[in-house]
C-alpha cells in the first residue's frame, strides 16, 4: 500500500508505479535532487506499461524484453556476431556439394578448422543467430507496446491546466506580467498560434497548443515495419519459400527443376566470343565470352509428375531467351544464366545398313544413345539390340563393360538376321564414333560378318548431338514482397519521425502573471521561434534565444 500512496499526486490523480510526471497535472513526482533543471519529458513522464511493484515470472520476462538497454545490447551483439560470419566464405555460397569438414581446414588451416568447428561457417543459419533475431523481434514488439499505449493515453487525455512547476521546468519558458483581461489575452494568443498550424484547446485562462502529434507514432510504425521485415526473413525457412539451386541442361534436353513441378528445356545455347581485335593487348588470344544465351522453355507438369513409370505431361508456360542479367521469370521463379560447357555430347545417330555384296542400303534407323528400341527392321534385315555401352571398354575379365554412364565412347551389339546370315543371327558390334571404330578395331571384332554387311552413318545430318550445355541458377524467394512491405513501413515511420516535430505550448495566467512553457521532441530552435513569433504578433517582442531555459539539446 505504501507504493500506492507514494504515486498519488496532490491533484488527486492516482499514477502508476514508475510515473515521473503526474499524468493529470504534470507535477514532477519523483524526489528531485535538482528542482531547477528542465524536466525529463520522455514518453510524457508516464510509467512504462510493464512497471510493477512486485513482478512475477511472466512480468520479469516481459520487463527483460521491455528494456531499451537490453534491446541495444541485443542489436550490438547481433552486429558483432554477424561480422564473424564474414571472415571466411559461408557454406551456402558453394555451389557444388562439398564436404565442409575438410574444406575449411584444407583452405585456411587451423583457423579454418576452428571456424568450422565453432559453426561459424553457417553463422546466419545457426540457432543462436536466429535466436538473436527472434529476441530482437520480441524486444521490438514489447518495447513498442509498453511505450506506445501509455504514450497514446497520455497524449489523448491531456490536462490543459498544468502544474506551475511543470510549465516552469520546460526547456522553453516565458514568464511575464500581462495587463488587461487574461481570458481575452489567451484567446488572442491562441488565434496567432492557430495561424502557425497549432490546434488550440483552452480552459479559462489556461491554454494548450499542439501540432504534428502524428510524428510521435513514426518510431512505432518504423518498428512495425522492422517486425514485418524480420518475420519475412524468418519465413524463408518455410518449405518452398526460398530456393537457390543450379541445373545443367544440354542442348535439346528437358530437365526438372528439383523440388518443383517445373521443367526447363534448353532449345539451344549459344556463346559468342570477343574477336582478337576487340580485346586489349593482354587478353588477345584468350576466349572471352561476349554473349551467352539460352533459348529456354519453361514447362509445368500437369500429370504423372512423380510417377516413375509414366512420362510426365508438360504444359508450356513461358519461353524466354536467357542472357546474363535477363532471367526467365515466372511466378516468382527466376532462371539466371550462370555458366556453360562447350563439350559436345552425342544424343542419337541415324545409321543405314549396307549389304556389302549387292551394295544395297537400307534405313536409316533411329538409334538414340540411351533407351533405344530393342528391335530395328531394315528391309530384309532384323536387328535385335543385345547390349549397349556408354563408354565401351574390355573389363579385367575379358568381358565388354562400360566405364561411365555418359555417351563418351558408345557401342551397340546387335544380333543381325537376314539374307546371307545365319538363321539364328550373327552378332555385330557398332561404334557410332569413327575414333572408336579405329581404336577398338570394329572390323576385327566383327570378323566374318564385316564382309557381308556394314552399319554406318551417312553424313553429319544423320548425327544428332548437343553442342553445349548451359548452367542455370534457379532462384525463388516468396518472402521478398513482404521484405519490401516491411521496408516501406519502416521508411514511412522513419520519415514521419524525422521530418516533423511534435510541438506543444502550455500556458496559464494566474492573477495577471503569465507562465508559458513549450516542449518539442526535436528542433528547439523552431519551437522557440514559434513562441517568439506568436508573442510578436500580439505585441510582445522577445529574443527567441532568451526563451531558452537550458537543458540538453535545447
Amino acid at each position, binding site marked *: 500500500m505504501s507504493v500506492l500512496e507514494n504515486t498519488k499526486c496532490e491533484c*488527486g*490523480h*492516482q499514477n502508476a508505479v514508475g510515473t515521473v510526471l503526474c499524468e*493529470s497535472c504534470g507535477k514532477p513526482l519523483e524526489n528531485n535532487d535538482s528542482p531547477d533543471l528542465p524536466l525529463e519529458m520522455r514518453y510524457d513522464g508516464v510509467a512504462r*506499461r*510493464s512497471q510493477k511493484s512486485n513482478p512475477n515470472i*511472466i*512480468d520479469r*520476462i516481459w520487463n527483460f524484453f521491455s528494456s531499451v538497454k537490453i534491446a541495444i545490447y541485443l542489436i550490438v551483439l547481433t552486429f558483432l556476431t554477424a561480422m564473424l560470419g564474414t571472415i571466411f566464405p559461408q557454406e551456402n555460397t558453394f555451389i557444388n*556439394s562439398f*564436404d565442409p569438414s575438410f574444406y575449411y581446414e584444407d583452405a585456411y588451416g587451423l583457423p579454418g578448422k576452428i571456424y568450422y568447428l565453432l559453426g561459424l561457417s553457417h553463422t546466419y*543459419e*545457426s*540457432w543462436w543467430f*536466429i*535466436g538473436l*533475431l*527472434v*529476441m530482437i*523481434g*520480441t524486444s521490438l*514488439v*514489447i518495447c513498442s*507496446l509498453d511505450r506506445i*499505449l501509455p504514450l*497514446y*493515453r497520455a497524449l*489523448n*487525455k*491531456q490536462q*490543459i491546466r498544468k502544474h506551475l512547476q511543470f510549465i516552469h521546468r520546460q526547456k522553453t519558458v516565458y514568464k511575464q506580467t500581462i495587463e488587461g483581461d487574461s481570458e481575452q489575452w489567451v484567446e488572442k494568443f491562441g488565434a496567432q498560434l492557430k495561424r502557425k498550424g497549432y490546434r488550440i*484547446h483552452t480552459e479559462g485562462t489556461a491554454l*494548450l497548443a499542439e501540432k504534428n502529434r502524428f510524428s510521435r507514432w513514426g518510431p512505432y510504425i518504423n518498428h512495425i515495419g522492422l517486425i514485418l521485415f524480420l*518475420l519475412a526473413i*524468418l519465413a524463408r*525457412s518455410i*518449405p518452398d519459400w526460398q530456393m537457390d539451386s543450379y541445373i545443367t541442361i544440354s542442348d535439346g534436353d528437358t*530437365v*526438372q527443376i*528439383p523440388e518443383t513441378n517445373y521443367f526447363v528445356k534448353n532449345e539451344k545455347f549459344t556463346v559468342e566470343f570477343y574477336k582478337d581485335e576487340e580485346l586489349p593487348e593482354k587478353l588477345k588470344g584468350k576466349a572471352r565470352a561476349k554473349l551467352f544465351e539460352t533459348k529456354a522453355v519453361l514447362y509445368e507438369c500437369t500429370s504423372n509428375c*512423380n*510417377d*516413375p*513409370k509414366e512420362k510426365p505431361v508438360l504444359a508450356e508456360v513461358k519461353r524466354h531467351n536467357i542472357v546474363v542479367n535477363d532471367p526467365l521469370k515466372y511466378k516468382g521463379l527466376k532462371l539466371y544464366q550462370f555458366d556453360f560447357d562447350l563439350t559436345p555430347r552425342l544424343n542419337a545417330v541415324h545409321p543405314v545398313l549396307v549389304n556389302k555384296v549387292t551394295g544395297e542400303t537400307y534405313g536409316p534407323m533411329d538409334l538414340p544413345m*540411351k*533407351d*533405344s528400341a*530393342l528391335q530395328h527392321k531394315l528391309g530384309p534385315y532384323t536387328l535385335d*539390340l543385345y*547390349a*549397349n555401352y*556408354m*563408354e565401351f571398354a574390355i*573389363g*579385367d575379365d575379358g568381358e565388354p*563393360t*562400360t*566405364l*561411365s*554412364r555418359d555417351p563418351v565412347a558408345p557401342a551397340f551389339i546387335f544380333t543381325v538376321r537376314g539374307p546371307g546370315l545365319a538363321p539364328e543371327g550373327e552378332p555385330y558390334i557398332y561404334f557410332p564414333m569413327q575414333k572408336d571404330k579405329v581404336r577398338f578395331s570394329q572390323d576385327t571384332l566383327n570378323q566374318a560378318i564385316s564382309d557381308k554387311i556394314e552399319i554406318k552413318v551417312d553424313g553429319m545430318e544423320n548425327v544428332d548431338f548437343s553442342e553445349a550445355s548451359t548452367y542455370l541458377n534457379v532462384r525463388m524467394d516468396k518472402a521478398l514482397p513482404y521484405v519490401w512491405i516491411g521496408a516501406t513501413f519502416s521508411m514511412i515511420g522513419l520519415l514521419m519521425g524525422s521530418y516533423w516535430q511534435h510541438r506543444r505550448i502550455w500556458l496559464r495566467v494566474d492573477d495577471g502573471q503569465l507562465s508559458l512553457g513549450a516542449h518539442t521532441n526535436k528542433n528547439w530552435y523552431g519551437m522557440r521561434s514559434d513562441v517568439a513569433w506568436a508573442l510578436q504578433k500580439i505585441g510582445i517582442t522577445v529574443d527567441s534565444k532568451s526563451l531558452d531555459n537550458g537543458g540538453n539539446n535545447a
Partner: protein
Amino acid sequence: MPSTFRYNGSIRSCVDIELVVISIMGKSRKTVQIGILIAVLIIGGYAIGSTLFGAGNTLLKEGSKPPDFKLADLEGNQQQLSDYAGKAVVVNFWGTFCPPCVKEMPEFERQYLKWKDQGLIVLAINLSEDTLTVNNFVRRFDLHYPILRDMNRKTERSYGLKSYPTTFFIKPDGSIMEIMVGGMTEVEIDERIERLLKL
C-alpha cells in the same frame, strides 16, 4: 475515484480506440502479455527449431532420416522407401560402370538370401542407366532383391551421393544406422546387417 480520471473531452479524437486502449491497459493486459509471449515462443521456436532439425538439403549422416523415394522396379511395380517402415532396410546405389558396385551385387544377393527370413529388405537403386543395360546385368547375376530404377539422377541427388557405390543401412525406426561409401567385403556387409537386425 471519480476525480482520478479527469479526461478533457475536447482532445479526445477517437473514443473507440481509446476504449480498446483502456481495455488493453486494464483487465486483459495479462492476457495480451501471455498471448504475445506464446506467439514469440511459437514463431521463434519454429525459426530456431528449423535451423536445428530442418535444414533439408544438408548432408545425410548417421541418425538422420533418409529422403523418401518412389521408384519402379524391373517388373514395373512402384516401390517406396516408406513402404518398408519398421523394417531393416539396406539401400545400395550401384551402376554397371562401377566395378566395386558390380562386385558387391552377388555379395548382396547371398546376404539377402541369408537374412531375408529375418525381415531384411535390400533395395538396389541403379544410377539412372538405360533399361537394356540394367536388364542384361541382372540376368547375368540372377538377383532376387528389388532393383529400382532411378531416373535422371533424381534420387541419387536427393541422397547427396558423391561416389559409388554408396550403401545406406536404415534402422527399423527409419533413421540411418550407417552410410558406407565405397565397396565393402562380404564380411563387412554381413557384420553390419547382423547389427542392423538386432536394433
